[in-house]
């Protein structure tokens, strides 16, 4: 069953076109950042799908985004310009870093599918003023969606949207719990396939699969050395090639590793926090969720609240070290990384820093990761 995730991931466009055929009367909206309130779209029975890059070198974004913006936003825009997402009915972004916004803007200008919405998302999430503001923005969004779909929604619809998302989140968290085991029954790559698949599959189809997988994993044994337990921290990163390289090092080299946890917007930062269903007003509850979730660094001020969560993850998943990942030019994370590293190091978790581009130069990265793993070696065989 677990292969399902990879299958979905590899055939995401097929899945999405197929979904459209199965749901001829339903709309599909592409979103660019994890700050998009998917609950609201589900309430309208619209399928929110996150637009991801393809990790292929491309030459179509040059006229639209100049050199110093992150490769991820470039890669994302390339998908649109190359017409890979023509089946979308609309696009939206919950304001995140300004890099990703550019992908959205250019897409909106050159490939507008007929509906688009820019959702301001408060940056001052530590302020009590953030939730009321965001609620106001949600009301505008809902109005716009009502005009578009000709539907009006009720609190019941919103609550349905909330439970759809919460279920998916809970299912993934349960699987993440299993990665705490000394010999995790699921590799980092597999887990990344899962989280990435969730971005674009219909949560109502995803969650049952995730639950089945959870049951299977109870008894699953992987015949591969665990090696060092690593955590990934930092920028958006769905670079499976890299994770695969790390987790297969042991096949070629005397050292090996398994990614057991991540803190980035492709995984935990995106799904970890649930909507508090005890809050009466569902819209308020959703707003609260997005304001209080682990923030993107560009919203994490005046207090740098991410640090404790990262460290806690590191401890709970008992990691030997952390690879701090930064997408080239990713300003939000660049402003945090020195402090993230300090915090982890001073708490006994060694870190190594890597700068990512659209494609990973696997060779040069392998040597770095290996050398990092060698520094983690406890056994002094070599000395």
């Amino acid at each position, binding site marked *: 069953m677990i292969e399902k995730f990879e299958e979905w991931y590899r055939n995401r466009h097929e899945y999405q076109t197929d979904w459209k055929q199965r749901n001829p009367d339903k709309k599909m909206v592409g979103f660019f950042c994890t700050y998009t309130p998917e609950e609201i779209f589900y309430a309208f029975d619209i399928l929110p799908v996150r637009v991801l890059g393809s990790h292929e070198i491309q030459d179509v974004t040059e006229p639209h985004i100049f050199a110093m913006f992150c490769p991820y936003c470039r890669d994302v825009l390339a998908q649109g310009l190359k017409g890979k997402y023509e089946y979308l009915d609309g696009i939206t972004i919950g304001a995140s870093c300004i890099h990703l916004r550019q992908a959205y803007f250019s897409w909106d200008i050159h490939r507008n599918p007929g509906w688009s919405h820019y959702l301001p998302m408060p940056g001052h999430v530590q302020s009590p003023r953030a939730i009321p503001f965001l609620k106001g923005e949600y009301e505008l969004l809902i109005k716009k969606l009502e005009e578009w779909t000709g539907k009006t929604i009720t609190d019941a619809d919103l609550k349905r949207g909330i439970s759809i998302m919460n279920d998916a989140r809970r299912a993934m968290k349960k699987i993440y719990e299993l990665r705490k085991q000394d010999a995790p029954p699921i590799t980092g790559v597999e887990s990344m396939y899962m989280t990435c698949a969730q971005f674009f599959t219909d949560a109502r189809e995803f969650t049952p699969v995730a639950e089945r997988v959870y049951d299977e994993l109870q008894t699953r044994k992987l015949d591969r050395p665990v090696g060092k337990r690593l955590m990934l921290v930092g920028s958006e990163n769905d670079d499976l090639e890299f994770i695969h390289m790390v987790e297969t090092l042991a096949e070629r*080299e*005397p050292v090996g590793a398994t990614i057991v946890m991540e803190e980035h917007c492709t995984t935990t930062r995106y799904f970890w926090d649930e909507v508090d269903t005890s809050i009466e007003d569902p819209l308020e509850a959703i707003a609260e969720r997005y304001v209080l979730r682990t923030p993107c660094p560009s919203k994490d001020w005046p207090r740098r609240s991410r640090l404790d969560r990262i460290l806690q993850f590191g401890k709970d998943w008992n990691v030997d070290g952390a690879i701090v990942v930064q997408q080239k030019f990713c300003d939000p994370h660049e402003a945090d990384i020195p402090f993230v590293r300090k915090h982890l190091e001073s708490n006994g978790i060694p870190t190594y820093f890597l700068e990512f581009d659209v494609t990973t130069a696997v060779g040069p990265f392998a*040597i770095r990761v*290996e050398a990092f793993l*060698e*520094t983690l070696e406890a056994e002094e065989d*070599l*000395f």
Partner: protein
Amino acid sequence: MAEETKQEFWRWAETNWVNPDMNWKDAEFITVGIDVGSVSSQAVVMCDGEIYCYGNRRTGSDSPTSALNALSFALENSDLTQEMVNYCIGTGYGRVNVPMADRSVTEIACHARGANFFYGPEVRTVLDVGGQDIKAIRCDGKGKVTNFLMNDKCAAGTGRGMEVFADLLGVPIGEVGDRSFEIDGEPRPVSSTCVVYAKSEATGMLRKGWKTNEVLAAYCAAMADRIYSLLDRVGVEPGFAITGGMAKNRGVVDRLMIKIGIEKMTTKWDTQLAGAAGAALFGVALCKKGKGRKVAG
């Protein structure tokens, strides 16, 4: 009008050596370290942790052959044969393609260990400037890596660049260092150490009537700057040693040392051997732990 240069000035001397006052037959453990780098390949043979012989050659276009060549070059003047080796470790850029290796270790670990052997346990910071990598390594008293940085994406400031450059100016690479000081008044460093642009920049300077040595000086200085900025990021702790081929280029090294402002340690060994030596030493440790091969005799 300059014709394309026929002679290959970048060619640095390939060397091998056998320790005359050592008999491998007395050794308990014979270990080999083979460092297949992007530019050069070395094989170092050790008897119980002392260098018995070595070979240092240019890397060919495939690692297994380069590794073999280096080893046979090392054994050329000795009756020691591969069969007698108890442990062999491959390192360097082609480390996974060393046929006779029992295991591999990264060149980062090996250079740190090798530096510890070449320069003594006081070494804390190792700079390895090779064919296309610049590695700044921090290590402890045992030669164990504690932290390191490498250049990425851009090869500016590496040995290969210096080769291209020496070739362009028609100066044998071994002379680059000394000649870069046969000038009056240190020139401004070239603005780019990009291997490719450095070429046109140098051409430009020659066109402006600069003397060859001045151009060399300007380029060496730029390389030193570039290397320094990487070193600066790991931080230089005294006990500073340089390994790799660039260590032999005093045009870059001496200029670098001025910037760092501390003494660099010295060794009688060929700095290009550090990686292979480190590898061989790891082999010794493994043998002592009974992990070595049993060999006839």
